[in-house]
């Protein structure tokens, strides 16, 4: 929890990792990709305040002590959600698998939620694995990375016929939170891999599932917003938005936040630090202190203490069925609802 000026914030970090990208875990022959991936992540860390930067050695494999200190002791996080990411083409034991994350979660009861994963290219074996993982880990959510490579394939789509049985299985198993991260490669390569239209289609046909679009669809914030404003079950995952922009590009950050508050609304935005890319401490404290820099932003929705309480934890708590202690809750109907534009307008625009 975090307390500032007499206000108490329940902090639920919807996007954290405990990865191993050390050279010992690189797949033979794929070292360039394994190294390139983690170096790219490390570059992102440089977008945060200088005093929070790590050496590449620490960044490749940070310790459990680091994790506990950065997330719980100093980072104000009450509950963290592990977004498992496999990337087994590049990392022998995976980048941060459900299994590795669950081991950590077991040591910190009630403080960590482990999300699973699936990949439609695994077919029936993947469905069986999902059932088993759901039983073993009590999954309430999954993290899907559509640009992951597999046996020569460079990615997949959420609206493909192969993905459908997995979405149905999620409904059946009560895995209601589908976190989706778009990446740079997907077949066919001549199409825009970041286009979130497949999420739109899946969200429409599965109204009981929640689709949390990680990094608000970056680099396609506009496509994401036009979709999220029309789909009640599409949410904005704020990781990278806060970590990558709040310190490095504060004016862009203000514009992006203003647009998200307008199109998506404070009830559907979830804080995520993307730890270990960025430590949650400065992000939580910065968000609580944040407001628009000047009156040129006056036609964006106001951001209030209630907005921040929702974004920092209450919205995610609702999705994951977390019982928030009374003192952190908001009275019903607090805050500013999204000023939604109508769908027809969006359809005609681009």
């Amino acid at each position, binding site marked *: 929890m975090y307390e500032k000026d007499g206000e108490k914030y329940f902090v639920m970090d919807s996007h954290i990792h405990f990865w191993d990208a050390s050279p010992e875990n690189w797949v033979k022959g794929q070292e*360039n*990709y394994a190294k*390139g*991936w983690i*170096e*790219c992540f490390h*570059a*992102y860390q*440089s*977008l945060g305040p200088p005093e929070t930067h790590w050496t590449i050695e620490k960044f490749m494999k940070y310790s459990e002590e680091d994790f506990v200190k950065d997330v719980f002791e100093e980072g104000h996080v009450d509950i963290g959600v592990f977004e498992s990411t496999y990337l087994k083409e590049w990392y022998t034991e995976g980048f941060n698998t459900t299994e590795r994350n669950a081991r950590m979660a077991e040591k910190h009861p009630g403080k960590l939620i482990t999300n699973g994963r699936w990949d439609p290219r695994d077919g029936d074996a993947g469905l069986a694995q999902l059932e088993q993982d759901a039983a073993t880990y009590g999954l309430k959510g999954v993290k899907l990375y559509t640009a992951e490579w597999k046996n020569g394939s*460079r990615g997949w789509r959420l609206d493909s016929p192969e993905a459908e049985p997995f979405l149905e299985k999620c409904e059946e198993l009560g895995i209601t939170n589908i976190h989706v991260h778009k*990446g*740079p*490669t997907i*077949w*066919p*390569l*001549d*199409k*825009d*891999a*970041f286009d979130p239209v497949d999420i739109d289609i899946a969200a429409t046909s599965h109204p009981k599932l929640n689709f949390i679009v990680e990094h608000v669809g*970056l*680099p*396609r*914030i*506009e496509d994401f*917003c*036009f979709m999220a404003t029309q789909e009640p079950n599409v949410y904005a995952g704020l990781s990278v938005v806060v970590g*990558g*922009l709040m310190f*490095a*590009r*504060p*004016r*862009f950050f203000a*514009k*992006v936040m203003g*647009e998200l508050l*307008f*199109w998506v609304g404070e009830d559907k935005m979830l804080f995520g630090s993307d730890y270990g890319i960025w430590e949650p401490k400065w992000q939580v404290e910065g968000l609580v202190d944040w407001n628009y820099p000047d009156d040129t932003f006056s036609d964006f929705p106001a951001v209030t203490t209630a907005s921040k309480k929702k974004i920092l934890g209450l919205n995610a708590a609702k999705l994951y069925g977390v019982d928030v202690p009374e003192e952190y809750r908001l009275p019903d109907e607090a805050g500013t609802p999204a000023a939604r*534009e109508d769908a027809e*307008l*969006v359809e*005609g*625009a*681009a």
Partner: protein
Amino acid sequence: VTDRAHVLDALGTVHDPELDEPITSLRFVTSCDVSADGDVDVRLRLPTPQCAPNFAFLMAADARDAVRRLPEVREVTVVLEGHYTGDEINGAVGRGEAFAGAFPGETEGELDALRELFHRKALVARQSGICEPLLAAGATAEEVAALRVPDLPDDANARRCLELREHLGISTDAGAAAFVLPDGTPIAAADLTHWLRMARLVRTSLEANGGICRSLLRIRYDIPDPEEAAA
């Protein structure tokens, strides 16, 4: 023989299709050498090794085409460095092949539709950047909607709008509306506020992406970025 300045000018006409900014101002051109015989060697770099292969290919291929159009240029070599599909892209660009040549079996078509999609986004974003100050200065929606192409300001933003309109097959005649939807339909006064709300979001998205790209490039190659502090 063409000199280096001309080659750099030619490279300045090549835009990052996703950000709609010249690859020179984005500092994606690492080096540009012209030999005494007129052979040109251009090296390109991107903010991350994982930047999308389709956009990376377009920039490399466009750079080669732009330089080859110069008179008195002989061999043109364009090499994209530090990219995870660099070998595939450089091979195809060097052979003068299309995108499918770089990634056989991994594409359905060529990149024209992708390029057009981003031309549309860029036109929307840039028009919003021209429109907003007019309204802020007190122009009414009716007055803005009545503006014609010659009324556009004489600046880089407006010139790029006209280029984009030409790419998209939208008229730039003196009688044509100054502000149009990506299909060429003039924006009606009654729709202007709503249109601007959406257009501004498209612009913010492009700007935020551009900001992240610039920051990552600065970090990757350890180069100062004078604009960062101001953004």
